[in-house]
């Protein structure tokens, strides 16, 4: 197990290192970061001053070295718009984003697993058909459109929920609900198909033949094994949820990293964009690392392979 953990850890560090390289070169995509970050009407003199001030006139390897060195010390540059360090700006908005994404994930898992299990055990029944139809549609509906329709129904027409902002429990209902739908649809379908697979295994037949109650067969023997692929997918989906949060936060003006990043992109505040991409991507790597480790605990075969 130790070898497995060490191997995963090294891999994660390697990926984060790669992420830092990509993040650094993001601003070079357009050719000249100085031109990118300054207003379009900046004079040549202003550009030259900006370049030497921010070190853009040095060799690119040196620039990256400085970028990485400063990033390791928690310095991701200064926000061009706010004039303060970029990292704290991101950090103070991170709790809002985590609250939103974690709520959405919990919601999705809490609904998807029972629905998938019910669908699998009552395959072909009206409940199964209804669940699967809703799941199919749920995967196809764009979440930003669903948000707008939700606002139209629950805020404008019924007046039950606030349209934007963060504060009370009511504020998180719509954003988290909408964010959860895509993942929930995916997990419900996956839970159903893995349950169907597991239910036809020999050990389930044995459990039934022993005369165990159906509830025990389902929860102890079937579901526990069906959970393994589910955990992986849930982990892998974290990146998608974070990406989805960027969109949803914008619709509901949820004061998280996503909304802030979108604003930074439209303000051409690229140090903030870089910091945000680096932080959120590292978060995805971290979550995937945790899932890999959890996977090793759940399924001993994985450990041995490594």
């Amino acid at each position, binding site marked *: 197990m130790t070898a497995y953990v060490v191997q995963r850890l090294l891999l994660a560090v390697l990926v984060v290192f790669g992420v830092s390289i990509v993040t650094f070169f993001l601003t070079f995509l357009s050719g000249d970061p100085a031109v*990118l970050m300054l207003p379009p009407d900046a004079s040549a003199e202003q550009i030259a001053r900006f370049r030497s001030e921010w070190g853009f006139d040095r060799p690119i390897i040196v620039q990256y070295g400085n970028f990485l060195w400063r990033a390791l010390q928690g310095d991701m540059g200064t926000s061009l718009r706010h004039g303060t360090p970029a990292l704290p700006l991101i950090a103070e908005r991170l709790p809002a984003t985590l609250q939103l994404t974690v709520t959405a994930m919990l919601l999705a898992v809490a609904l998807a697993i029972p629905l998938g299990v019910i669908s699998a055990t009552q395959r072909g029944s009206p409940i199964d058909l209804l669940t699967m139809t809703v799941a*199919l*549609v749920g995967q196809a509906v764009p979440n930003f459109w669903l948000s707008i329709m939700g606002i139209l129904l629950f805020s404008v027409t019924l007046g039950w929920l606030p349209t934007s902002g963060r504060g009370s429990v009511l504020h998180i209902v719509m954003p988290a609900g909408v964010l959860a739908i895509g993942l929930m649809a995916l997990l419900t379908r996956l839970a159903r198909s893995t349950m169907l697979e597991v239910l036809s295994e020999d050990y389930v037949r044995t459990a039934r033949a022993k005369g165990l109650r159906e509830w025990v067969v389902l929860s102890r023997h079937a579901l526990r094994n069906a959970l393994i692929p589910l955990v992986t997918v849930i982990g892998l989906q974290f990146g998608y949820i*974070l990406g989805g949060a960027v969109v949803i936060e914008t619709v509901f003006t949820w004061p998280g990293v996503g909304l802030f990043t979108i604003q930074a992109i439209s303000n051409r505040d690229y140090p903030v964009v870089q910091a945000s*991409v680096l932080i959120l991507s590292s978060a995805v790597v971290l979550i995937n690392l945790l899932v890999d480790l959890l996977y090793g605990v759940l399924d001993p075969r994985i450990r041995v392979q490594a």
Partner: protein
Amino acid sequence: MSTTTTSTTAADETLSLRSQAAGARRSAAGLRVLKRSPLMTAGLIMIGLVVLCAVLAPFVGTRNPIQQNLALANRPPVWQPRGVADAPLGTDQFGRDVWSRIVYGAQISLAIGMAASLLGALVGVTAGLVAGFYGGKVDILVMRIVDLNLAFPLILLALAIAAILGPSLQNLVMVMALTTWMIYARVVRGVTLSLREREFVQAARAIGVSNARIMWRHILPNLLAPVMVLWTLELARVILMESALSFLGVGVPPPTPTWGRMLAEGRGLLTTAPWIATFPGIAITIMVLGVNFFGDGLRDLLDPRLRKQT
């Protein structure tokens, strides 16, 4: 009864006249498949509707999609009072026809979706094939790049790159392809790993067939089924992401109508003109649902193991 027989015979004759027996057998098999898979049929019909609208936009659209007419601003759909006949789904705040904009928007959605998913498939399949076939250092390098790319929240990466490069059709296609190639690479690598140990590959190698030819003639055809299933799934995702980027303001620049931007523009007018934001969303859903249905049907068809389970 007799008429059916006659028409069948007549049809048979025409087919034999064309002497395309093989083709006929294939299309007959295709029809049988559709009959057995209502999901796939439904998907095909939905995709067909959108494609038809996109291709026939100049004829299906009732008005010029970018022509403003302030006298006709914010008119509701035709079935509501104040609705006008040549704007069946209403007009937006500039008096532009929502239906015509949706129809032309389908062109953008389809063009970017197809181009990006095909480009992604091309890059991903090549990378996966090479990694799986050669193994060793090549494999490690390619797969680490895949891991790296997957670590980014894709929509955030796409947003940042699209914003930096500047929004244009070509840039969007490239950015989208960047969010999809890794999935192909992963799957193709896995399948290639197992294929390269199979007897037909060993046999080809034994008689001195070159590596390039083995990959092209012996392995690639066997990858088609999984790649096609993956392609439908990714097409749906790419279309959704394009509309999201467009919604966030880094899509194809105005005045080109896109579904995502129509939604964004309609967002501020929810209380007075809810139809502006409503209909483009329905269009996206129909398109994505159609592709998903088709993809699910295709997977059931190509992978009998899965068909048994569901």
